[in-house]
């Protein structure tokens, strides 16, 4: 199959959906001529014109609200927030309006929109352009939260998100934008709420998200050489969470390491851990539930500090090895 980048997969999903469905449009800062801060929408202005690629000045709250309003009357907007750090400016409309209108109006409103935003560190962009805040939005009933780790997943999940009749927060990862993988040319969907076992294994489960899926897969290859057989589970959708796949994997392996980039405290890893600890998998656990996640600091500028602020392959290997060897 043809290989394209994660970034191209996202662009393709949007382009093909916009070709298919005239209710779909984009709104965001510098998404037109500039092509988006990461060039995700590059070329789309030429194809669709300024009526469907709405370039706006710095107005995170209003552009998000504009997506909510348009969705409310049957459009299918895709809003882009340039960096996830700035969802802090948009969250009123996302959390109080997009997420709640349907329930608040007795199930009689529909808000089919996508809010796309890149998260994560690794580009030297420092404290204000590197956060991973996905767990904020998983806490909000009414929102769905998607976080793809491969080009294939990115396209299929984004198509599903656009077609979903709810507000979906689609969290991209900056370091994945340039990664390549096989992606069908035609439109296809990956159901929201369905985890993917990225690697089967029997000794230990790693549940990882976004760029940590790739790092965990690399770690698994190394550990395989040591005879440790790791299963890597990628939830792909954080809300609704495919608890069964997580639980079944842990029941099989008896050990689980949770890996994410976001700060450990109150990150999604806590939810994963709790879901497992309160499930029937509890009885199968052969060791404590371990988490490896971002340090309790903002993301610093200096390259080496930034590197050490979040889990790297070697940290995953080490932690997984310890866990594999642990006997309780």
């Amino acid at each position, binding site marked *: 199959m043809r290989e394209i980048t994660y970034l191209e997969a996202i662009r393709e999903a949007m382009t093909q959906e916009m070709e298919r469905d005239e*209710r779909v*449009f984009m*709104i965001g800062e510098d998404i037109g001529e500039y092509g988006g801060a990461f060039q995700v929408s590059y070329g789309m202005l030429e194809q669709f014109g300024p*009526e469907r690629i*709405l370039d*706006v*000045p710095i*107005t*995170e*709250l*209003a*552009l*998000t*609200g*504009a*997506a*909510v*309003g*348009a*969705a*409310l*009357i*049957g*459009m299918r*907007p895709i809003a882009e927030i340039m960096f996830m750090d700035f969802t802090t400016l948009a969250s*009123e*409309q996302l959390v*109080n*309006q997009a997420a709640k*209108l*349907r*329930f*608040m*109006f*007795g*199930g*009689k*409103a*529909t*808000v*089919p929109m996508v809010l796309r935003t890149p998260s994560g560190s690794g580009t030297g962009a420092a404290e204000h352009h590197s956060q991973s805040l996905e767990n904020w939005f998983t806490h909000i*009933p*009414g929102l*769905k939260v998607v976080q793809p780790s491969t080009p294939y997943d990115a396209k299929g999940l984004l198509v599903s998100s656009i077609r979903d*009749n*709810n507000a979906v927060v689609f969290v991209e990862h900056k370091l994945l934008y340039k990664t390549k993988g096989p992606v069908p040319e035609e439109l296809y969907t990956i159901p929201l709420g369905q985890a993917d076992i990225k690697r089967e294994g029997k000794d230990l489960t790693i549940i990882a998200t976004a760029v940590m899926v790739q790092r965990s897969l690399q770690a698994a290859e190394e550990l395989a050489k040591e005879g440790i057989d790791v299963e890597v589970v990628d939830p792909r959708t954080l809300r609704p969470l495919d608890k069964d796949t997580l639980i079944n994997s842990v029941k099989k392996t008896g050990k689980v390491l949770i890996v994410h980039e976001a700060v450990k405290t109150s990150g999604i890893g806590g939810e994963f851990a709790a879901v497992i600890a309160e499930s029937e998998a509890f009885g199968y656990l052969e060791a404590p539930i371990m988490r490896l996640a971002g340090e309790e600091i903002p993301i610093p500028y200096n390259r080496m500090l930034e590197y050490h602020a979040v889990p790297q392959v070697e940290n995953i290997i080490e932690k997984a090895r310890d866990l594999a060897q642990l006997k309780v």
Partner: protein
Amino acid sequence: MKITKQQAEDYLLQMYQIRAFEEQAEKSYMAGKIHGTMHLSIGMEASAVGSISTLEPTDFIIGHHRGHGLTIAKGADLNLMMAEFYGKANGYCRGRGGSMHIADVEGGNLGANGVVAGGIPMAVGVGIGLKMQKEGRVLLAFFGDGAASAGAFHESMILAVLFQVPVVFICENNQYAMSFRTSDWADSAKIAEFGKLYGMPGTSTNGNNLLEVREAVQKAVEHARAGNGPSLVVNDTYRWRGHSKSDRNRYRTQEEIDEWKEKDPIVRFTEVVLKEKLLTEEEIEKIREQGYADIEAARAFAEASPEPEVATLLEGVYAP
């Protein structure tokens, strides 16, 4: 601006229905029948009716927390509305929304909103959608004077002008945001000036004069419908009651309240229709009675309506 006898009847009936609804709401609350809070718009009826009377049934409104009047003016079913106020299963929002969130999306009412300025960014998006849908529909987006100081207002006005959306932004300036005296930073004329600076027509009206409100909004609606983009209309008015159930009126004087009561928008309108010989005293009295009777019927309907079943609690969060 001339109106017909039919119009005079309709507008007056709506104003009385609003007045009666609010009085009933207050009574029901005082009687302990309502759990929660409410925001009454007694004294502001002309702003709601005058503005919304300019719309076609297929047009939209989006409101704010003080939304009972707007909802009635948009032609809500009073029974379903009162049932929602009572939190009943057959209310507009199945008892989920209550006073602050009554909506009727199908009927073109995109809802009251508990977040000050929460509806303004959405209004821009509705306008963008309406423009794309090319059916000539327009939106009236209501908000209070308090909302005008929120960042959401500024950002939204800029986008509204940029995309030339068919939206009339209507600031119902009742002088206070809770206890904050809005004239400490802007009066109605100044808020209208902001509209102009953003690049849209901006006017302020005597918001207690239904016909003046109607004329200003009518013009703005035509402007929008003709594809000429948004406008801002500021209706200068006053709420007679406290901000919400818990208000002690510490921030204003009884004299001020009394002065504004002298400017009762309903009285003012009846004077006009009498003078113009559109309606007689008797007709007016009959309309008044009708308004109160409608609300009394709605109250009875609401009180007789069933509570939502707890088994349905988790429904309606996600659309299929």
